[in-house]
């Protein structure tokens, strides 16, 4: 039997569809093709197959539609612990009950992995603590592919996601306009920023507030009802849009800064930009959950850090923002060479 082409996609993420095919010189005689899949591997599609039988993980192809070509698509539909999983798919060609040709395809599935390398278990706050260099966490990114990281922080109560910087910027300006009732100026700015981008963003944030989500900054609980009513009042929409266009330059700067902060290391995207948390007077501990997912939106088990806080400041009443400094250690592997880069 002479093959013109034998192929299986050389690497994939969990849930990624993996195509494979065999294409041979037409004079080859056979009457059935039997394909054995490992139990974890799910068959998603068959190419050029007229009729087949499936029993558990074995497929018997009785007839092809045309020509001398057979193909399939498989995927591993569950997440696993190892960074690399290797499986085999066996293909046998039979003629009159006798095996006349065999081929083995190797499936290589890789996943990214985030793990904690270094974090304090305890922090002491004094009057002369340098907060900018207080909380340092080292994380290791290993395995394969890009990950999106999202932080959830709790300072006692429930876990809250930190808002995107642009959300803070836009909402802060909305709050200022609500407070001062300032009328927008008519001065035009010649900034070529994608207007759809800002519109979409502003809309997203307004919807968030409309759902009753109170921003964690700039507005007190007692004022929120009034602010909420101001936001949902359609008469104020024009004012909000003009406010955004008037501050285009700030928003552009904010967006650029966010863009640069979003990608702190190769293969890592921090969805909320540079992280920080608000430390209030009664804060005694801090829990941070690092959620992460790959390019196909597979969500992996999060990494959690718990830190006790000992507040020795003389003026404890003053809340402050504590930056979370992250250090990324890379140990990614290349699927082609199957070893670390």
């Amino acid at each position, binding site marked *: 039997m002479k093959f013109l*082409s034998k192929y299986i996609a050389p690497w994939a993420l969990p849930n990624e569809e993996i195509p494979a095919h065999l294409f041979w010189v037409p004079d080859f005689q056979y009457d059935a093709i039997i394909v054995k899949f490992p*139990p974890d591997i799910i068959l998603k599609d068959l190419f050029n197959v007229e009729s087949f039988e499936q029993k558990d993980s074995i497929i018997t192809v009785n007839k092809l539609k045309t020509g001398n070509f057979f193909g399939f698509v498989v995927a591993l539909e569950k997440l696993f612990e190892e960074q690399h999983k290797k499986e085999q798919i066996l293909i046998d060609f039979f003629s009159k009950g006798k095996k006349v040709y065999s081929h083995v395809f190797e499936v290589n599935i890789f996943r990214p992995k985030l793990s904690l390398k270094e974090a304090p278990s305890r922090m002491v706050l004094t009057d002369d603590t340098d907060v900018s260099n207080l909380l340092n966490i080292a994380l290791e990114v290993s395995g394969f592919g890009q990950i999106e990281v999202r932080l959830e922080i709790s300072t006692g109560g429930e876990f809250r996601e930190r808002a995107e910087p642009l959300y803070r910027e836009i909402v802060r300006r909305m709050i200022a306009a609500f407070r001062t009732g300032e009328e927008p100026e008519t001065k035009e700015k010649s900034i070529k920023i994608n207007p759809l981008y800002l519109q*979409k963003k502003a809309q997203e944030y307004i919807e968030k507030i409309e759902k009753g989500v109170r921003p964690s900054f700039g507005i007190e609980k007692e004022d929120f009802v009034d602010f909420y009513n101001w936001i949902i009042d359609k008469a104020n929409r024009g004012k909000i849009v003009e406010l955004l266009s008037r501050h285009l330059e700030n928003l552009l700067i904010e967006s650029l800064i966010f863009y640069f902060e979003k990608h702190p290391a190769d293969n890592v995207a921090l969805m909320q930009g540079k992280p920080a948390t608000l430390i209030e007077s009664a804060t005694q501990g801090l829990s941070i959950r690092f959620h992460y997912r790959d*390019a196909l939106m597979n969500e992996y088990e999060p990494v959690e850090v718990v830190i006790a806080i000992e507040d020795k400041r003389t003026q404890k009443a003053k809340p402050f923002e504590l930056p979370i400094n992250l250090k990324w250690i890379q140990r990614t592997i290349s699927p082609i060479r199957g070893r670390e880069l």
Partner: protein
Amino acid sequence: MDSENNKPYTGERTLTQSKMDPTKALSVVRESVTITEQLAELAECLRPYKPEVKKFRIDYLDRSSEIKYFLEIPAGIRRKIHRNRLEVPARIGFRIYELLDLDTGNIVSQFNYDTAESKWIFDLNTFPNSERYLLTLKGNVSTNLLNRIADVKAAANPSRDNGIDKYWIHSALKDVSILKRWWDELDVERVNADVRVGVQRYFTSAIPSQVRERLDVGRKLMDAIARGDRNLEQRLKTKYRSLQKIVKTSPVELYELISTLVSGGFFVNYLKVDDPFVFGAIEPLRQLTVIIPEKVKVSVQTDLNFNQPAARGNLSFQRTKYIEDITDNIEKAVFPKKKRKKR
């Protein structure tokens, strides 16, 4: 494995249909019936002239089809015995594109479109004295049908080796049973796969720290002005001015520069694709919630047919070279006068 998969199954099941919306699957079946019916009706119209399919092309990218028939229209006295009109109704779904006189190589232009009856009419009395003709007709193909005919896939993440990012690409004919009769002549052209090449991180490392500092001071300065903090405003203004002397680019210019560096025209220089694939459109992927495109969409195409029912290969992106060049471009824009380090 779930219980459904444990059951033995016999028969002609298309696996994709089990995942698909049943109404959609039904419409695909209906459409494939239609295309077969259309072709049968067309053959019936052409029957007196012994039609023979010479080529059946499907253009995946345009979602169009093209069929070429070889026709024998007797000349001289034998033509008189035949009906002297050739008619093709428009409702068939194919439109007449061209009729070629194979004896002389000229294009026959003597045909009319009858608007009242919606059909093309060839008056054979006006035809040249040739016997062999090639008739080309064109039609449209739905996305549903295309998805049933061909399958395309590309790696979600690249593998990395020696500064080069590689993405695997695979395309294959999936089900050509509806077109089986024409299989030998069938050509599915420009089967298109989109590879999304990530560039998100590269600008972060290519932007000099002074630029980020200028952005940061600019932000603080505007805040100070807004709050009316005169002292802070003065201090920041001095700092901002000194940074402005070093960093010549404004945020707007920087944004525009980055947009140029992710444009298809610039990006194509760093790409290579294996045979039999060729490049189609290359453009930054515009996502509404991202200010700078984080991915560039690279279309790669190939033809699939009897001799090549499947195609495989890699798209390579010269990552290291790209980072070096964008860094150089950004430095030139940001520090126009400063002596730059030679690479």
